């Protein structure tokens, strides 16, 4: 892993307030047709905290992320994102707020008619940033995900893993104050998955950006918790035996409800039958 510089310490997002959660769900409920997809959901993400959201497929993990960004509206409940009440905002008011966050979609969601450069620079182009600066920042973002050579390529020319990495570069280019990863390793081979997790870890440890990462792959979740990114070596290294990253904690959903919220240690020692079954 190369050591990227596109988020120099001076440009690194500062937490708005030491203790104020970056995101806070309070008694959130959403249903489409039929029973609730998510019910009575409450949790927070603190500044610099990484929350790993676990749960079986179809339990509402992606819905939760879309709620956090205001892409979906809850039936009732409160969602505060970067201090603003998302549920009380109009779509138009939400756009500037969303621009302060980054989201990596499950299937990358790259714009297939645009080049990698234009995908990564999408926000900058809309903000009419000069071309030279755009190119420079895109190169830096692509260097961060080790895909600088794809600058002029199109999403159709990339493999699944490369698309995810480009999606990460797109989400990070504007130095977001919160990043949401929706199953960034889903459907990828173990080697590529490890590369993606290393990028997530790098973002967490180097730039301290708070995040929520949805996954149903326990090995990815545990790796994120038991390793740290070594900036000197340029790759991830395991934490000493028995240590875990204190800022990386777990959430777990089952049947639309939050059944676990705690550290890796608590997760491994919980009495909840479903969690135990999931872990086994």
């Amino acid at each position, binding site marked *: 892993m190369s050591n990227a510089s596109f988020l120099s310490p001076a440009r690194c997002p500062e937490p708005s307030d030491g203790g104020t959660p970056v995101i806070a769900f309070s008694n959130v409920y959403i249903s489409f047709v039929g029973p609730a997809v998510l019910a009575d959901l409450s949790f927070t993400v603190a500044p610099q905290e990484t929350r790993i959201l676990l749960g079986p497929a179809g339990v509402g993990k992606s819905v939760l992320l879309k709620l956090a960004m205001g892409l979906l509206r809850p039936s009732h409940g409160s969602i505060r994102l970067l201090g603003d009440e998302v549920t009380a905002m109009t779509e138009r008011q939400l756009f500037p707020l969303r*621009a302060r966050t980054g989201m990596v979609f499950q299937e990358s*969601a*790259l714009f297939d008619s645009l080049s990698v450069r234009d995908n990564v620079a999408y*926000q900058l182009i*809309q903000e009419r940033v000069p071309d030279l600066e755009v190119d420079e920042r895109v190169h830096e973002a692509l260097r961060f995900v080790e895909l600088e050579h794809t600058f002029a390529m199109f999403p159709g020319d990339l493999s699944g893993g490369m698309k995810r990495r480009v999606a990460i570069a797109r989400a990070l280019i504007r130095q977001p104050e919160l990043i949401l990863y929706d199953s960034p390793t889903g459907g990828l081979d173990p080697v590529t998955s490890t590369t993606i997790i290393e990028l997530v870890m790098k973002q967490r440890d180097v730039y301290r950006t708070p995040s929520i990462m949805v996954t149903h792959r326990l090995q990815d979740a545990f790796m994120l918790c038991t390793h740290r990114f070594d900036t000197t070596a340029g790759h991830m290294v395991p934490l000493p035996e028995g240590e875990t990253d204190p800022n990386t904690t777990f959430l777990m959903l089952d049947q639309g409800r939050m059944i676990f919220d705690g550290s890796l240690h608590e997760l491994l020692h919980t009495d909840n039958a479903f969690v135990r079954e999931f872990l086994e």
Partner: protein
Amino acid sequence: MATNRIDRTAKDIVFTVQEYSLFAWQAFANLFSPPRYWTDFMVQADIVGVGSAAIVLLSGFFTGGVLALQSSATLAQFGATAVTGRFVSITMIRELGPVLTGIMVAGRNASSMASELGSMVVTEQIDAMRALGVDPLRKLVTPRIGATIIMLMFLTIVADACGIFGGAAVTVFMNGQDATQYFSEAYEFLHYPDIIQGMVKPLFSGYIIASIGCFYGMRTYGGTEGVGRSTIQAVVTASVLIIFVDFLLTQVLLTLMPPL
């Protein structure tokens, strides 16, 4: 059971109309407030205008030719073949030019808009755009509506001109009539109300084509099958609405500006 189904269908229809009205109004209102995406507007103008020029040109030419063929046969019974030029030009400019161009462009562009936006919806590209802080309605829909309204008007002019030339070709080369007589008839009996009627209709048709195409695209669900369904719905709805609105507009415009 049957009552429930009728009830549900009626509610669905009302809901769809309500959704479309809000969607179309918002997209239109965006034309008058920043940010405006001029590059997207120009790209769409090229796709709709330049891209459709060939089919509009050909369909206009042959429609004019058919009009001349059909009308001259009937007019000959009254010894009035001399008025073929008048008949072709007025029919093309008032009615067939705008409607045929609208339907041709609907088939080509309402479908492409629905399928393009529909594909973006099912691959989460629209959500990604929203997540990146960009309004898809403003970025994708409004430029398409603006470009289609303006370009359809120019395409209609092209279709009208080609139709008149098509009629001239048939009149001169097949019916052996005089070209000067054809064109002077075509020109002399054409009045401003005819032109205004022909130019107002494409404004409405353009709005219908783009707003319907984008509306069905943006509400696509159900993967690739859903994209196909949206495309069909867009073309069918846009074509029917063009003819229906043309009927209403003709009635209104004939009342406001009776033929001279």
